[in-house]
């Protein structure tokens, strides 16, 4: 129970960081998708079935926080987490030493996928800016270093154990 409350607080604070802290810190120019990065890194280490409700909750909180249509971020995050989780077995086994770089590749792919999905579902094709997408990829990659470190430092909270990396 305590672990679930901690995860809830982490997701809540991640959404505040994404909406309020980073846009203020970088004067609205860059705002890393903290929740997206967190979800990708988490789902790349856990089975989708074990965390899918947390992903829905994360998407829901993000949809609430950005005053958007409910469902857009849920759908996008669930789809990305499903993909990341599916690639988990294929890439992470016996690749522990280079796992961060695989995670980084997932972050880049996930960022592009999230970007396209959100634009498509918001019907905001006029808002497309490739420059912003590049900045988003860079900022998400940088923030992923911190999130990656934090997830592994507190892996007990997120239910990650080394044994889960092995195929049963």
């Amino acid at each position, binding site marked *: 129970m305590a672990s679930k409350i901690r995860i809830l607080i982490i997701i809540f604070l991640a*959404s505040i960081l994404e909406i*309020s802290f980073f*846009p203020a810190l970088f004067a609205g120019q860059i*705002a890393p998708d903290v929740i997206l990065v967190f979800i990708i890194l988490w789902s790349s280490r856990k089975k989708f*079935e074990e965390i899918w409700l947390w992903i829905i909750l994360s998407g829901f909180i993000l949809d609430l926080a950005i005053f958007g249509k*409910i469902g857009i971020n849920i759908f996008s995050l*669930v789809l990305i987490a499903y993909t990341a989780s599916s690639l988990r077995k294929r890439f992470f086994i016996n690749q522990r030493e280079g796992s961060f770089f695989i995670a980084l590749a997932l972050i880049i792919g996930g960022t592009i996928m999230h970007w396209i999905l959100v634009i498509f579902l918001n019907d905001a094709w006029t808002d*497309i800016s490739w420059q*912003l997408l590049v900045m*988003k990829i860079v900022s998400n990659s940088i923030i992923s270093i911190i999130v990656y470190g934090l997830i592994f430092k507190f892996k007990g909270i997120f239910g990650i154990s080394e044994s889960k990396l092995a195929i049963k």
Partner: protein
Amino acid sequence: MPKNLLTSKFIKLILVSTICLTLILVNPKNFFNPVRELFLFTAYPFQKTFYIAGQMMNNFSSVIFSIGDYKKENEKLIRENNELLAKLANLEDQKRENDELRRQLELLPRDKYELESSLIIGQDQRGSGSWVIIDKGESDGLKEGMPVIVYDGILVGKVSEVYEKSSKVLLLSDSASSINVSDIGTSARGILTGEYGLGLILGMVEQTDMIKVGDDIITSGLGGLMPRGLLVGNIEQISNTSDKLFQQAVVRPKIKYSDLNVVFVIKKIK
């Protein structure tokens, strides 16, 4: 369908996707309002604290990065100060002329508005400068459509969604934003829309109307709660629409929307 696709994982994905896509299509906004109110109420103190902390760190880093430039800046400022003193006398005269022009153009002075000052506590995380979240809401008398300005009556957007303690402000740069405006010099009317990456676009200007580069653009006062005379920006570039029926212009905003800290909502005209 292959058998391994029908796993519980895949079924969950399909189920969630179906529900989400239905929600997006139906968009039952009011249905989730109580939950959103609760979330915003809970998040409000955190948003405010984190936003201020972010700004402080931004300011601090700006100071750190600019220390090396301070000496040069100081010498430059001394030179500029001397120049400015010389120009001051000239400006006094221009101010009188400006006041007269302002009167003629019926620009509304700030003391004619009932303003609600608001702190920005959140921004569009896509970085496209489409909207901001302010710390005032229904309990402060805010309503949808109210204009949002900064000092000196420069329009930045309008309130698009109102909740108990916070509101969403759609900035002029958002592609969904549409405001009736006119040219301060020639009174040519048009519609100002946001166009990402190109700033603001003044469209629907008739070919018989005259607009020129550098002209200031103000609100025309037509439609909704928008008063006349709020400054928006100035014309940067003029062109014709592809069908040659109308003129259009790129308008440079008077302020940088990403630098906003405090804004004022016009609740009513006194």
